[in-house]
């Protein structure tokens, strides 16, 4: 399980998961594509986008990454199907994401924005495995 939708009165809250923090970043981008287009897709050869973030705060890096992913979905109709995150230092990371282009008509759920509200990256044991997770609130 890479994500779970959580009830939120007005908007959309999602808990994303990964075995490592790097995988949490990777899964979140792919899961966000799945949620918005309401389908799971992949291709053998897509294009690649690289994102770089530097902040003392991992949550800020994480939300800023999701902001970039969402912008590219909303504006360019990219579907991100695979990502690879590499920590360059404690405060900086690079994420390479593979994508292909869909069209406006493929979008099933409009998400306006990623919020910073209450986001914290933590770990917990799920089904006997320690997993990292982050709850993110999206404006819809």
């Amino acid at each position, binding site marked *: 399980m890479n994500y779970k939708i959580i009830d939120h009165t*007005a908007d959309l809250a999602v808990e994303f998961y990964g075995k490592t923090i790097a995988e949490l970043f990777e899964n979140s981008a792919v899961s966000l594509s799945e949620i918005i287009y309401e389908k799971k897709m992949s291709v053998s050869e897509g294009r690649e986008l690289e994102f770089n973030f530097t902040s003392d705060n991992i949550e*800020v890096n994480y939300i800023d990454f999701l902001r970039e992913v969402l912008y590219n979905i909303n504006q360019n109709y990219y579907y991100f199907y695979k990502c690879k995150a590499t920590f360059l230092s404690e405060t900086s990371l690079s994420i390479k994401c593979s994508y292909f282009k869909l069209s406006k008509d493929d979008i099933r759920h409009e998400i306006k924005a990623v919020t910073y509200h209450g986001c914290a990256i933590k770990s917990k044991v799920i089904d006997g495995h320690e997993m990292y997770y982050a709850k993110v609130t999206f404006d819809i």
Partner: protein
Amino acid sequence: MQFNGHPINKISDAIWEIPRSGEMTVPARFYATEKMLPQIFKDNALSQLLNVAHLPRIQKYAMAMPDIHYGYGFPIGGVAAFDVDKGIISPGGVGYDINCGVRFCRTNLSYNEISDIIPKIVEGFYKFVPSGLGSSGAIKKLNYKDETEVMLKGAKWAIEQGFGEESDLEHIENFGCMKEANPDTISERARQRGLDQVGTLGSGNHFLEIGIIDKIYDEQLARRLSLEKEQVIVMVHSGSRGFGYQVCDDFLHLMVMELSSLPYKIPDRQLACAQFNSELGQKYFQAMCCAANYAWANRQVLMSLTKKALIKTLSISEEELGFQLIYDVCHNIAKVETHDVNGKEMELCVHRKGATRAFGPGRDELSNEYKEIGQPVIIPGDMGTHSYLLIGTDRAMKESFGSCCHGAGRVMSRSKAKRTFSFQQVKNELQKKGIVVYSVQKNTLVEESPQTYKNVSDVVEAVEMAGLARKIVRTRPLGVLKG
């Protein structure tokens, strides 16, 4: 009575206060009848209101209107004012859909003239008004020069393009334009996103509704506004679309990056802010004004397209239709206004997030038509129930910085709505009530089903009990276009 260990004091039958404690700058006040309290506690929105009460230089109270519900950062239905000299401005206190708002229009038509052709009318709306996810194409794609004009002129730009009348401006909050707009503050991304969305409804809770006035509460005011029972009215609800979302996103990010340099702690990053008079604070305010103007241009075009749809569908003349804007109010905005704070006139930056201005009589900001009676206030309910037109009061000026609620307020999450209701079920229930609904996305209809909102009549009752606005008329929906 307590909330998360905080005592709650009853100030009156519809006003409640959580006293200042710990690091709170001011007390928190919320407006609700006693029967609405369990829902408000369950939703946990008060925790967000308490966070707002911690912000620096906030004046009087952190406030929430009766439609309060859980959001992010500020609660929805939140009102907060900060002094402009040393206080702050917060993009999270305005929201992403900057100047999302609603307009209320009258016509010369009566129920009997259209009762048999509601489906045809809603179909006409769908044909003429672009709606749904990422909708575009109402007007020719703008170039950067046109888009700059939209940012600077707001509703007036749309009127210059032939969408509406010059006199409409008198019936729009701020006359449809915030003069402080500065297009130099707008990012390339926001510009790109705004090029093809003027004149589009969008999705989510945005709607276009045709209805009738089914109850009059204040005959004198209704007559003054040329409103009568059984008369057909139209409401348009939309905002600044992707342009506004991007403006908020851009500046929220910049303010989050500056958080560690602030001399105060913020309880939630989504409340990131800058001093109003700082370079960053001013840049955000000017950019927000551009987005507010974009939203007014958008609703002006939408209203004009709606009028055109009615003329074509009904095969009548413009004179016979008698379409006239009563008022247009903003829901998500920050404005510089003068208010009395403990006996002293102060210039404040008033944030309204999911809240409406409700100025009483005599304010300079109102047009001549409304200066004497106060500002019309529109409170739409869900698509299966009533909506209300009210008038702002002196009491609101003293009590809530001239503010009121913006709608019914949600009580159920969209995901729970999808688990609970089906598209056909919602459509059938509305049909039984004689309401024709056209929804571009099936998901939207289910997510916005009537059961997901508070009872708007309870909300309006709380507004009246607190004295924030007075009812003029109630309307009932006949047909709704959802994005």
